[in-house]
C-alpha cells in the first residue's frame, strides 16, 4: 500500500473536498484540473455538502482484496444536497433496509489497512441520517 498515494488524497477523502469551476460553476468530485464542461483550467477547492440521498446501491458479496472482512457491505450512488454525486459505502444499516431516496450523511471510518504492520487508511462512508432533536 503506497503511503504517498494515500497521503495525497487525505484532505479530499477526510473532508469531502471537491472542485468548482470558477468560470461555469460546475462542481466535481473527485477534483479535476480541467473543467470538462467549459474547458476552463481555473478551478478552486469546493466543500461538498455532507448529506444527501441514495440514488442506487448494491451489496458486495465477493469483495476485492483488503475488503474481505467487511463483506457483505453496501455501496451506493449518493446524490449530495448540492447535486454532486458520490460513490460510497453505506454503513450502520442492513442491506435489506436500503431504499432509494433515503437520507444519508457522511461519517469517518476505516477503509482498509495494510496488514497488522502497515498503515491504516481512513476515509468517508455514509450512514442513515442521525436525526437529532432540538433541545
Amino acid at each position: 500500500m503506497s503511503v504517498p498515494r494515500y497521503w495525497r488524497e487525505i484532505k479530499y477523502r477526510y473532508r469531502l473536498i471537491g472542485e468548482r469551476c470558477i468560470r461555469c460553476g460546475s462542481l466535481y468530485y473527485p477534483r479535476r484540473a480541467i473543467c470538462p464542461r467549459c474547458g476552463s483550467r481555473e478551478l478552486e477547492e469546493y466543500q461538498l455538502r455532507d448529506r444527501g440521498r441514495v440514488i442506487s446501491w448494491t451489496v458486495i458479496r465477493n469483495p476485492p482484496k483488503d475488503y474481505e472482512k467487511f463483506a457483505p457491505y453496501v455501496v451506493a450512488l449518493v446524490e449530495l444536497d448540492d447535486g454532486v454525486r458520490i460513490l460510497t459505502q453505506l454503513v450502520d444499516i442492513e442491506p435489506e433496509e436500503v431504499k432509494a431516496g433515503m437520507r444519508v450523511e457522511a461519517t469517518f471510518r476505516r477503509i482498509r489497512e495494510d496488514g497488522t504492520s502497515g498503515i491504516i487508511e481512513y476515509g468517508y462512508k455514509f450512514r442513515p441520517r442521525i436525526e437529532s432533536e432540538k433541545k
Partner: protein
Amino acid sequence: MRPSNPVGIVGYGAYIPMWRLRTSEICRVWGGEPPIEEKAVSALDEDAVTIAVECARYALRRAGINPKELGAIYVGTESKPYAVKPCGTIVAEAIGATPELAAADYEFACKAGTEAFQTCIALVSSGMVKYAMAIGADTAQGRPADPLEYTVACGGAAFIFGPRSEKTLAYLEGSYSYVTDTPDFWRRASEFYPRHGGRFTGEPAYFRHIIGAAKGLMAELGYGPSDFKYAVFHQPNVKFPVRVARMLGFGMDAIKPGLIVQYVGNTYAGSTPLGLAATLDQARCGDRILVVSYGSGAGSDAFSFLVEDRAEGPTQDPPVSLFIGRKRYIDYSTYIKLRGKILR
C-alpha cells in the same frame, strides 16, 4: 487549581457506536452474573480515531467556531490504533484544523480524556491558544470471561475549551488532580488484553483517588455536596459510582443524568466525558456540576463546572440519549468477530 483567566466549555459532542451486546449473551457462553444490561460495540470499520472524529465534528458544530481557531487537539485513549502515530493529527486533519496547532495523544487509562481537559484549560487560560479540544474515546479490549469483559465498551466525547465569553456553555470554576503509583489495572506493551488486581481495583484504587480528588477540589473551592446539582463519576459499572456518590454525600438524583453505563457499558477514556455530556444535555443555567474521573495507574481529575445560559440554546447535535437509543443487537459470535478476538 484555578486558571488565571476564566475558561469555559464552548462546545461538546458525543458518539456511541450503534451495535449492542446484551451481557446475557456473555453469560450464555461464559456464565457469571451480568453487572449491566448491555454495552456498545464498535463496527469493524470503527476505532478510537473514528469515534474521536465523530465527537470532534459534533463539538465543533456546537461551538460554532472555525476549526482553524483550534490551537490544540488532544486525544485520550487506551486503544490507540497506532502505538506510534498520534490519533490527534488524524482528527485535526479530518476536521480541517491543520497545520497550525499542537496535537498529541494521552494515556492514563480511563482518565486520559480528562487529563486532556487539564492541558486544554491551561493552554486557553494562559492565552497560548484561543480554543483547545480534549477528546476521550476508546474501543478497549477485555479478556474473554474476565469480569471486565462484561462492561468494556466503545464510545467517546469531545470538549472544546475557550475563554469564558457569551459563547460559553459551562464555566470552569476550578480543577484538581490526584495521582499515585497504584498498579490496579495495566496492559503491557505487546499484550492484547489488560490485566488487573481484582478487588484491589476497589478501595485502594477507584475509591481512594476519586474521593481524594473530589474532597481536594471541594476544599479548594469551599464547596460541599449541596452546592452541586449534578455529579459525574467515572462509571466502570453501576455499583462503584453509586457507592462513591453516597460516600461523598451525593444522592441518586445528582448522578442519574450522567449514569449511562448500564445501557452503554464502560467506555474507558470516554466514560467520564460521556457522563458529563449526558449531564450537560439536561442541565440548566446556574446548575453546578462536579466531574470526577478515574484512571487506573492511578489517578483522578476533578472539575467544577457552572452551567451558563447558552447551554440551553437550540442545537442540531444529537444528545447522548439519542446515541443510547440508536441501537442494534448482535450475538456473541458477531461480537468476537467485530472485536477482533477471532480473525480470518
